[in-house]
């Protein structure tokens, strides 16, 4: 909100009200637009779930209850490769750890009062809602962005999951071959933004990606299906951990010793987020 807008008499108040309303409209428009775009991935997920042997209900329960796209794709990806249930659960949880970090970032902004609100808000802590909430110009718009993006994506994602699963379940041989080629392409499309120069530490992201792919392929002939995916992630994550002196430096930057509890209490504004 504009700090000077409200103290200048009537025209200033009206102008600031108009600005607030325009900002709310812009936030809602962005949220709905993002929700529609993400909905397309829901079709791909429904199709991938069907290709992995899940029925429509299982695909829908994943979208409704798990509701975190990358983990859902990972689960059906490992099952589709013939992996065990444990390997599938493990890969979904590995990707789900991202949302824990998002939750820590969102907690001061959302400040959910009471158990029920926290339990509800947690369900929608995902990539897109976090990105929208953190990018909003102030805390109120950040909350609006979180809830509007979450609601739009939740509805769209579940509807399109059913469409994708139903659409894929009636396919013949050639269409099945097409679907088989769509699944890795969908994973590549999810990975792609992380490899672009604009992404933070793109060079490291690229090395990590190549490492993950190579380790997974090398392990494929020698370990049970699905295990190579989890093993590749663990190996690459361990290889990419910061060396001890980097830890010390990064730790000092992240939280000065005299200010240990700061991340939860500090006021949230985009300039203070180290996104």
């Amino acid at each position, binding site marked *: 909100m504009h700090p000077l807008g409200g103290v200048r008499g009537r025209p200033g108040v009206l102008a600031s009200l108009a600005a607030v309303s325009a900002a709310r409209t812009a936030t809602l428009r962005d949220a709905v637009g993002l929700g529609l775009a993400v909905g397309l991935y829901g079709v791909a997920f429904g199709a991938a779930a069907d290709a992995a042997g899940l029925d429509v209900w299982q695909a829908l329960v994943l979208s409704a209850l798990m509701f975190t796209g990358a983990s859902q794709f990972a689960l059906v990806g490992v099952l589709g490769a013939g992996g065990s249930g444990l390997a599938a659960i493990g890969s979904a949880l590995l990707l789900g750890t991202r949302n824990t970090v998002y939750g820590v970032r969102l907690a001061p902004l959302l400040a959910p009062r009471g158990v029920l609100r926290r339990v509800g808000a947690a369900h929608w802590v995902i990539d897109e809602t976090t990105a929208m909430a953190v990018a909003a110009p102030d805390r109120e718009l950040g909350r609006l962005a979180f809830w509007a993006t979450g609601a739009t994506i939740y509805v769209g994602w579940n509807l399109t999951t059913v469409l994708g699963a139903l659409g894929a379940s009636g396919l013949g*041989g050639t269409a099945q*071959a097409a679907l088989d080629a769509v699944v890795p392409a969908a994973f590549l499309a999810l990975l792609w933004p992380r490899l672009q120069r604009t992404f933070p530490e793109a060079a490291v992201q690229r090395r990590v990606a190549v490492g*993950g792919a190579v380790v997974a392929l090398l392990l494929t002939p020698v370990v049970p299906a699905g295990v190579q995916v989890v093993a590749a992630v663990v190996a690459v994550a361990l290889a990419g951990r*910061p060396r001890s002196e980097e830890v010390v430096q990064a730790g000092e930057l992240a939280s000065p010793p005299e200010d240990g509890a700061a991340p939860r209490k500090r006021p949230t504004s985009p300039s203070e987020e180290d996104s």
Partner: protein
Amino acid sequence: MSGGSLWTVVLVAAVGCYLLKLAGLSVPAAWVEHPWVTRVVEFVPAALLAALVAVQAATSGPDLVVDGRLAGLAVAALALALRAPFIVVLVLAGATGALVHVLAG
């Protein structure tokens, strides 16, 4: 995998992923914001997605195979490099996979 154990996998993974989200909103920030943790979490998606791309495109059970999926992946990479929208990328990859299937079959 039987239908029952598939349901178990679906439900356990879903509840686990939800609890990871809830933990973020509930635990003290200092527990999670270790540089080591955030650093690993930052790079897990790239490793996992790349591993899945490789496994889904180039393996069948314990074997490394080259078929229409790899051709579709190459076309998808080209389309992504040309900034094609997601849906176009998927359609092109699927069409390539189907074409290879028809030509090879």
